[in-house]
């Protein structure tokens, strides 16, 4: 071991996340406070949804697909519906396309509000966390009122949407987003002037324009590095073909830039929702789609709150798909995180990870424990036993607890 290596310390973080309640490992190599290397381990809960889709009918798959993600469920179901509609040659009524856009933008609002609160919590700014989550609750109430559920609203179906959009829903949404719009102005002012927030986020988690392109970053991560890549603009779909969308970018390329981009995107979402409600055409909200889907393959993509969301569907002429592949935006942003962490400081690791708004599911898998030259790989049961034994040594016997 060289003298340089002796000064390095390896810190395994995770699989419990340092900032969010989802699992991944971050093996951070430190030289003092400086991060010199970072290795990310993901895949702790591969749920096999794509395999499950192959043995279920398309309409059953729609409900599986909606559950790929709890936050951007509508983005996934929209991409999947678009694929089936293209394969069958069905034209979705424009009224349904407008409703899809309104729900998609409400989803973007609650996703970005959740992120903003979480990010502020990461840097100890819990006042902002409380404000943004208060606002998010109002959006979730709207979703519950319209779709029947706070998340997984079940709005989409093949050929359109499942619920009519009445006057009360429209006026409730307008009232809420008017209030939110005022709050967003305040949040933007805070983001631009609050010195603690600015100094805590500026220059942290840098990912340059070139690196963002190289590592395939998408969504606010790419936009904050000056990459004007937004599927609503690059390949307008549904009602986005008619509704003007302003492309938001920033050139700071750091966590601060990602914060500004998300706040500006929320303000843009408010405008899109207002436009969509004002210009929503009348007519049907759905058309019938056959149970058996003609053979073919299709690739659709939508702009989820976190970025590009790709769905591939291959049909074989039956009522079950031959292959379904979902690529969520976080998959694209992981490579960039590894790069962002390098050269940063240990204290900035949580906010840097949180800044891509990572989304991955729960359930543990294995952990590698480094102990000198010996490396022990522990599976879930061993890890659980290790945890029980560790607490016993501390005088706490959790097995004796009756829950």
């Amino acid at each position, binding site marked *: 071991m060289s003298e340089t290596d002796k000064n390095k310390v390896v810190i395994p973080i995770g699989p419990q996340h340092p900032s969010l309640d989802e699992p991944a490992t971050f093996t951070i190599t430190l030289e003092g406070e400086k991060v010199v290397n970072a290795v990310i*381990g993901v895949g702790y809960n591969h749920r096999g949804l794509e*395999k499950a889709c192959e043995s279920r009918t398309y309409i059953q798959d729609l409900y599986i697909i909606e559950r790929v993600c709890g936050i951007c469920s509508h983005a996934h179901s929209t991409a999947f519906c678009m694929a089936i509609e293209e394969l069958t040659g069905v034209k979705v009524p424009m009224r349904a396309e407008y409703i899809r856009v309104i729900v998609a933008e409400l989803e973007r609002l609650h996703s970005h509000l959740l992120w903003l609160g979480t990010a502020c919590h990461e840097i100890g700014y819990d006042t902002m966390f409380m404000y943004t989550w208060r606002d998010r609750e109002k959006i979730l109430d709207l979703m519950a009122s319209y779709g029947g559920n706070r998340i997984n609203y079940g709005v989409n179906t093949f050929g359109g949407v499942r619920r009519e959009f009445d006057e009360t829903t429209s006026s409730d949404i307008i009232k809420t987003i008017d209030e939110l719009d005022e709050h967003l102005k305040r949040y933007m002012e805070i983001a631009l002037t609050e010195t603690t927030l600015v100094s805590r986020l500026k220059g942290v988690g840098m990912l340059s324009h070139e690196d963002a392109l190289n590592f*395939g970053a998408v969504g606010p991560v790419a936009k904050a590095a000056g990459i004007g890549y937004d599927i609503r603009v690059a390949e307008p779909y549904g009602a986005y073909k008619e509704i003007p969308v302003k492309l938001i970018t920033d050139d700071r390329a750091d966590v601060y830039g990602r914060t500004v981009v998300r706040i500006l995107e929320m303000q843009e979402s408010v405008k899109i929702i207002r436009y969509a409600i004002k210009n929503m055409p009348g007519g049907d909200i759905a058309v019938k789609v056959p149970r058996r889907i003609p053979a073919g393959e299709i690739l659709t993509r939508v702009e989820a709150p976190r970025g*590009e969301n790709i769905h591939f569907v291959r049909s074989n002429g039956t009522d079950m798909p031959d292959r379904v*592949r979902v*690529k969520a935006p976080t998959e694209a942003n992981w*490579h960039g995180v590894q790069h962002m962490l390098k050269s940063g400081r240990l204290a900035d690791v949580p906010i840097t990870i949180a800044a891509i708004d990572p989304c991955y599911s729960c359930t543990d898998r*294995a952990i590698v424990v480094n102990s000198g030259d010996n490396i022990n*790989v522990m599976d879930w049961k061993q890890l659980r036993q290790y945890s029980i034994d560790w607490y016993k040594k501390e005088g706490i016997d959790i097995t004796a607890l009756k829950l």
Partner: protein
Amino acid sequence: MSREEEIVKELCDRFPFLQDRIYVQKEKRIFTKELSKEEFEQVIAFVHDEMGFYRSHHVIGTDEGDNLGFLYIVSGSDNILLILREIAPKSNPVINSICKLYPSIVLHERELVDLFGAVVEGLPEGPSYPLPDNWPKGNYPMRKEWNPKYLNKDTMTYEPPQEKEAENE
């Protein structure tokens, strides 16, 4: 001539073997038919180096019966998705990694290894993805012949009927 058709023409001029094996599916979608490993590697290097397809979106594995298919999705500044379809026999599913051209492809190529049993040469060292460490070796769940009902989750062994019958005898 649309931009999509221009891309197809440029590729056909450069690679005569692509004639009748590349088509515009619709606006912003160009697909190729099945390409051998050698053909694919020539085309992907060319579109990356010479045609400005700098962004890699994904690689999708497919089960094609006796073969495995790999759909590489790349695009450039005009946001047209070019989908190159590489194929390899299941008996020898060896392909080369394209991570030197597209660093962001690594995670997706690891997935081909775990879920389809592809042998991706040139992948950098690192943790496998996405199956657990105690996953039974030689089991590739996204292949059509693999059935989840024969996976014993307690012992993490895969026990299809013919193996059980053989044991009884």
